[in-house]
Structure formats: C-alpha cells, structure tokens
C-alpha cells in the first residue's frame, strides 16, 4: 500500500490513497460534492460541471470528479465563487429543461430539482423558446422524455459497463443531443430498468410506476427479491397495501443499485387477478371457496386420521418460502406427522459440494467474493441470463479490479466478452473444459468457481479435487434456482437430511417417490407445483396445497389454502451463496396468510401446537440460530437489513449423493417458474415473449 496523500478539504485534514478523486476523498470526511455525471463505480464522464471546486493555487475552478488528490492540496467546496459557478451551470442545464416539476414523475426525488433548490438558481436570463421534442416509449418498461435529459450519460454507462448490454447511446450534438435506443425506435435489451433508476432527472421513467404516485406517498419496504437465488434487496414502494415500485436506489443490500427486470418489475404477480384469496375445498368433485375454519378443520382431521392409521404422508416444500417456514414445516413433518417424506425441488448439488469441502474453511464464496476475487471461473451456466446479479458482480470485478474471467459453457454467453479465456464444451463435460485451463489457473493467486446444475455428483468432488490441486485458495458457488432454494436445503427439506445437513437415520421418500407411490394417503404441498410436469399416482391421496395461484397442483388439491407471497411476510431467506437476509412485509393481500401461520394453524387445529412450537417468525429464527449449524449469525446484521454469510457444515455429510434429483429450471431473465407465469410485466416485454 503506497503512502497516503494528505490534503485539506474545507479545512478538514484528509488522507487518501494516491489516485483517489477529490470527490471521493471529500466523502470520507462527510462532504458531499454535488454531481450529476459522476457516479461511483462507472467510468468518468466530466460532462456536467456541477462538481466544480476551488483549489488553492489553481488558476480556475476544478472538476472534483476527475481531479486526483495531491499532497498538500487545499480544496474548498462551498465558497461563494463555487456556489455562483454551480448556479450558472444549473441555469444552463435549465435552458431547455421543462419547468413543470409539479407534474413531472421525478418530482420530489429529482437531483436537478434538489440542486436548483440548494443553489437558488430560480431565475433564468434566457428568453428563447425551449427546444421541445415529444416523449418516446422504447419498451413496455422504458419511456424517454428528451427535454428533461441533462446528458449526464449515466444511463449509457450503466448499460454499457454495468450490464454489458450497450443498448443506449447518445445521438446528435449540442442542444439537440438525445439518448437513443439500440433499435431505432425501441429497445432490445435486458429490460432491467437500471437506466431509469440511475437517471437523476425525469428523462427516463418506468412504465409500471410513472404517474401512479408521488414518491413521498409511498412506504419504502426493504424486501428480498423472491425470484432467482441471488438474493437482491428490492426496496418496495408500497401505497395502500399495494406495491407500486421496486428499486434499490439507496444502494442498500448486497446488490447495491443492481436489479434485473424480475427484481424491479416482477412484483406484479402479488396483485394478479387470479391470486387466491380464500381457502377452497373439494365439494362434490369441485373446488369451492370455504372459510378458513372449515378448511383447517378438514386438513387437521385428515392429517390426524392418516397419523392414527399409520398412513403414508408426503410433504413437498417450497424454494420460495422463508427459512422459518421451511424449518417449521420440516419440524412439523418430522415431529408431528412422524415422517421423513419431505422434499423440495433441488436445483444444484450443494450437498456434494459441502461434503467435498469438509475439513476446509473459507471455501464458500459470497457475492462479495465474486466482485473481489482475482479470478473467477463460470462453468455450465449462462450467468447473465440465469443469475444476473452474480454476473453483475463479475463484470464489476473485471472493470474495477481487472479480474481474470474464465468461461466454460456449451453456448456463447455474455461473459465471453470479458473472458481471459472461453471454452465451449457440451453440458456435462464442464469438468474436462475446466481441466484444460489448469495451467492458466495455476498462475492465478486465487479463484472463485461458479458452477451450474450440469456439474453434480462425482463431478463436484472431482472439481473440488481439481481446485485443491491448483495450489491456490479456491472458493465455490453451487448455483441453485430460486430465492430460497439454498434455505430449503439448509433447513432440511430433504428426506435424507435434517436441518444443518445432519443425516436422517431413517430417510424418507423423495418427490419422485411420493408422486409414484400408489399407497400415498396424504400429500401436502407448500408453495410448489410438482404436478406441472408429473402425475400423482395415488388416485385416492388427500392433497393439501398452500399456494398463491390455482396451479396444476392446486387444481388437483382437496384443500387449497391461500398463501402470502415473500413480499407479504417477515422472515429470512438464504441466497445462492449462503447469505441470510431478512424479508419485511410490505403489501398485504386480503385472505392470504403466510405459510408459517398456516402451518401453525394446522398444528393448533390438530391439537399439536405445543409440539410444533410457536409460529412467530422471530421465535422460529431464534430456534434456527440456536440449532442449525452455520446459522448462528449476528442478529444486528440481520436486523439492520444486512446479509450474514452462513457457513453450513464443516464435516462429512454421510448420505448418498443424488445427482439424479438435481435439475435446474434454467429460468432466464424473463421467466421465473410459477411466479413468472403470473407476472404480466415479464410477459409484456418483447424479449420475454420469445421465452
């Protein structure tokens, strides 16, 4: 580490690493230098002139966003000269900018509005007509209003650099410059909305949110996206119990400002008209709405009868429900229903990875590791499409740290563009492709390996053996599909494993075995849709389904209990890297209850409330922290909305590896299992219609 540079900013002594920009050094001592075009993490633009500061001995004002610190530099950020310069800059920016803030979608959270207010640039000397062009719609989610654009290039840079898409550019010159989409009159891109989120003014607006509310009328709830497994924080703007917007503009959470289309717009399934709002029971062969008490009584009666007659009960859990719900469900199944027939849809071979890594420490990569590791290898996954935040981290690592990226996939992927080397190899052959990179990988100082569902079973052990043979620290991520796929494994929604990967001494049936059994008496499905692809063999089985929608499985049910979505409940979820984060309840849907409460109510109805234990999320999480290996995470981190990295086990997991059960749905940016089918937004963009 070179010696720090000493300088003075507004009379405060500052030490900063050589090369630090004055605007960043100022932040270290709590001085915020205003800027439009400067954006942390993106390339420098120096276009807006807002960050001008006075530097002693410099002949004129300097742009703090491109000025590196120098020894003995004396900077003043808020002198009358500076304030005057900023006022004039704003006067210029407002030359053609409409002054209709009261009806602008950005009003109240507009950086330009804030700056004009701060520097009192209320008067203009321009009397010329403003140049006006009509607003354009580029996709169902992106609108562009040219006159409001202040040409800060943030959207262009986030799309090029952050997303690696490059769908936006700037055409023309001077006062008629404007942002242009990549296909003439429309966009073909990830539809992630990053350009909208990063826009300091009301030039880029969101199709789902625009003109629906004022920002201060919403309650802002920090939720964790319930779609893919990456665990991005999405701050939901909720008004009157309805989600109006999802973004992460405050850069809280592991994902910073990043969100893909699913995190930003995919919340609309919560208010889909087909959302179940009342329990339903099969009466004379037809599902009919009934009250909660009748439905719960019927379920309890049937569960009790099956228990009394030693019947076969199968339980299928969800990859979207919270850790608390999963833990409570398996506890209920194993303790009250006395069965290990509990499973969920497995999408990545985490179990074999943890087993193969037994005896090592620090071998599981966090999302931050993918941003920081000197080298990253992606095997068997189209990361930008299937695990968008992990891809964003790797792109950031390449941009900011010049990380070496290696790609081993069947088809071309976006990561090829930043790869030091790409290997094309058929699915299932990834290990061979990775081995071909051995000599190059040995020259790295560290490595993070991210692998998809085609690397499973023995291949995972071989991969770990290969990693150890490199002689460098190697960390791993076994990719899984959904928001709590990892949590479902950790919480023991597996017939052969209890919570914390403790082997069960009496393994139960897998999903396939339950569906194939001809003697199943009861099937209880919590937030899953196994009957979409398979049939239930036991024709007489009593099927209880907790669901948000009347899925294929719910249609076969004898009792359907309407469940709350992840955005409507509290609890925790664990992302693909094993990071635990808290869900906060934002909106509410009348009639639906969180799965945890539903399971608790079933227990109470059966007279087993004491055995099942309390069903308050905090109580269950306290139990998880106390009993599940790796989950003794610091509460302050969780409570404050942070992410705590779990370290599940460090010892052998003596169960048979089941690669045959592992199958990823390989959802793209525009699909998301059942939830995706009920998100109109995901289906409305042209890229989504091609899915």
């Amino acid at each position, binding site marked *: 580490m070179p010696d720090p540079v000493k300088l003075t900013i507004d009379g405060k002594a500052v030490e900063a690493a050589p090369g630090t920009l004055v605007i960043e050094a100022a932040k270290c001592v709590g001085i915020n230098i205003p800027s439009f075009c400067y954006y942390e993490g993106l390339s420098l633009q120096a276009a807006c002139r807002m960050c001008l500061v006075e530097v002693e001995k410099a002949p004129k004002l300097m742009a703090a966003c491109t000025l590196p610190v120098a020894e003995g530099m004396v900077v003043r950020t808020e002198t009358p000269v500076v304030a005057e310069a900023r006022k004039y800059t704003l006067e210029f920016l407002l030359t053609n900018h409409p002054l209709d803030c009261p009806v602008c979608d950005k009003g109240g959270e507009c950086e330009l509005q804030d700056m004009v207010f701060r520097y009192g640039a209320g008067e203009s000397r321009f009397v010329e007509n403003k140049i006006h062009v009509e607003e354009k719609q580029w996709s169902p989610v992106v609108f562009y209003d040219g006159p409001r654009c202040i040409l800060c290039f943030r959207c262009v840079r986030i799309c090029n650099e952050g997303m690696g898409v490059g769908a936006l*550019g700037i055409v*023309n*010159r001077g006062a008629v410059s404007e942002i242009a989409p*990549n296909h003439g009159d429309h966009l073909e891109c990830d539809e992630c909305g990053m350009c909208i989120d990063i826009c300091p003014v009301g030039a880029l607006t969101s199709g789902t949110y625009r003109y629906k509310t004022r920002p201060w009328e919403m309650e802002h709830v920090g939720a964790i996206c319930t779609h893919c497994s990456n665990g991005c924080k999405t701050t939901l703007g909720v008004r009157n119990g309805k989600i109006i917007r999802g973004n992460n503009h405050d850069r809280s959470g592991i994902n910073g400002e990043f969100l893909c289309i699913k995190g930003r717009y995919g919340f609309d399934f919560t208010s889909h008209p087909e959302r179940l709002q009342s329990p339903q029971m099969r009466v004379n062969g037809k599902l009919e709405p009934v009250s909660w008490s009748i439905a719960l009584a019927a379920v309890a009666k049937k569960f009790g009868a099956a228990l009394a007659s030693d019947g076969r009960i199968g339980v299928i859990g969800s990859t979207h429900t919270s850790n608390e719900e999963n833990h409570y469900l398996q506890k209920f199944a194993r303790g009250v229903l006395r069965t290990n027939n509990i499973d969920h849809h497995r999408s990545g071979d985490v179990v074999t990875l943890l087993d193969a890594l037994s005896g090592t420490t620090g071998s599981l990569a966090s999302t931050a590791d993918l941003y920081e590791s000197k080298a990253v290898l992606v095997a068997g996954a189209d990361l930008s499409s299937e695990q968008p935040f992990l891809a964003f981290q790797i792109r950031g690592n390449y941009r900011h740290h010049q990380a070496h990226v290696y790609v081993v996939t069947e088809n071309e992927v976006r990561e090829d563009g930043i790869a030091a080397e790409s290997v094309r190899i058929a699915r299932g052959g990834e290990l061979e492709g990775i081995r071909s990179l051995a000599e190059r990988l040995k020259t790295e100082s560290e490595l993070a390996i991210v692998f998809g569902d085609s690397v499973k079973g023995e291949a995972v052990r071989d991969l770990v053996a290969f990693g150890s043979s490199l002689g460098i620290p190697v960390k791993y991520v076994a990719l899984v599909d959904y928001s709590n796929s990892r949590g479902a494994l950790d919480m023991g929604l597996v017939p052969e494993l209890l919570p914390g990967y403790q082997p069960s001494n009496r393994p139960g049936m897998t999903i396939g075995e339950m569906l194939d059994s001809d003697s199943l008496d009861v099937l209880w499905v919590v937030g899953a849709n196994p009957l979409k692809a398979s049939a239930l063999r036991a024709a007489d089985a009593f099927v209880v389904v907790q669901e948000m929608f009347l899925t294929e499985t719910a249609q076969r049910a004898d009792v359907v209990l309407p469940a709350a979505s992840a955005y409507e409940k509290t609890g925790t979820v664990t992302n693909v890297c094993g990071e635990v984060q808290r869900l906060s309840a934002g909106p509410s849907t009348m009639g639906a209850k969180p799965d945890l409460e539903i399971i608790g109510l079933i227990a109470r109805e059966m007279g087993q409330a004491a055995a099942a234990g309390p069903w308050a999320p905090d109580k269950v999480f306290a139990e998880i922290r106390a009993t599940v290996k790796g989950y003794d995470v610091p509460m302050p981190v969780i409570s404050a909305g942070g992410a705590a990295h779990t370290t599940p086990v460090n010892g052998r997991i003596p169960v048979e590896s089941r690669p045959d059960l592992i199958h990823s749905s390989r959802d793209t940016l525009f699909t998301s299992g059942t939830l995706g089918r009920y998100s109109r937004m995901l289906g409305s963009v042209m890229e989504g219609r091609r899915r």
Partner: protein
Amino acid sequence: MTFSPQLEAKFAKLLGSYPPGRQRSAMIPMLMFAQDEIGQVTQELVEEVASRIGCTPLQVEEVLTYYSMLHKKPLGKYHVQICTNISCMLTGGTELWEHACGKLHIGHREVAPDGLFSLEEVECIGACSWAPAVQVNYDFHHQVTPEKLDQLLAGLRSANAV
C-alpha cells in the same frame, strides 16, 4: 455489403493501422470513404462498418449523427458548402449564402431536384485568410463573390453535361 476493390483496399489499410482491439478508431475514415463512394451513409453501411470494427450499430450511429460531414441523406453530385462564420460573414459570406440559395432554389442541407447540387451553410472551414470561402466536395474556392459563384456553378453544370 460489397464495395469497390479500391475502397476495400482502403478499408484493409485502415483496419491494419491501429493496434489490435482498437479497430474502432477506423470508424470515421471508413464512413467518410464509403460515403464518397455510395453518396450517403445508409443503415446497411452503418451495420457493415459496425461489424467490421467490432462495435454496435448504435455506436456508429452516435458518431455519425455527431459529425456534420457524415450524411444519412444523399447529397448532390456537387455539395456546395458556404462558410458564414465570422471572417466570411464580414467579407460577404452571408450575402453569398443567400445568393446561392436564390440561385439554386434550395436551402440548408437540401438537394436540387436534378441531384446535381446540394447546399450547406457550414461553420469555419479554416480558410479565413481567403474569406469568403466555399468548399465544393473536397475543393476549396477562395474570395468568392456572387459572380464568381455563378461562374463556378455554371462551370460545374456544363462540365457535367459533357
């Protein structure tokens, strides 16, 4: 898209003139030379250049719309560019411009119906010492008066008729 062997040779030379990975530096000269050959920058040309230098068509579009000497619409055979910046303005450039507009019955960035002439009011072309200056295609004409302009246009018209 196919070009003449001469243009292809120019392209090959250009693409070899920059270090590996910097081929997009050839964008502006490629567009200029291709425009000279086909008369305008078409969408097809944009896509062709983009694929040859390894960038997106949008990035070519950004450059193309920024530079005023690149034209998306076809120009006349003789593109008459009249400077009205300060030196030329002081020595009669504005009158020259108005004269040309009246003579050719077209305005800024317009093409005469016969396709022979197009007119453009340009910013400084670096010929202030010989103001007012006119540029026809790549040829400069100095200290141009309305009479000299008439002669110039008539000469070009008759040269074309032969």
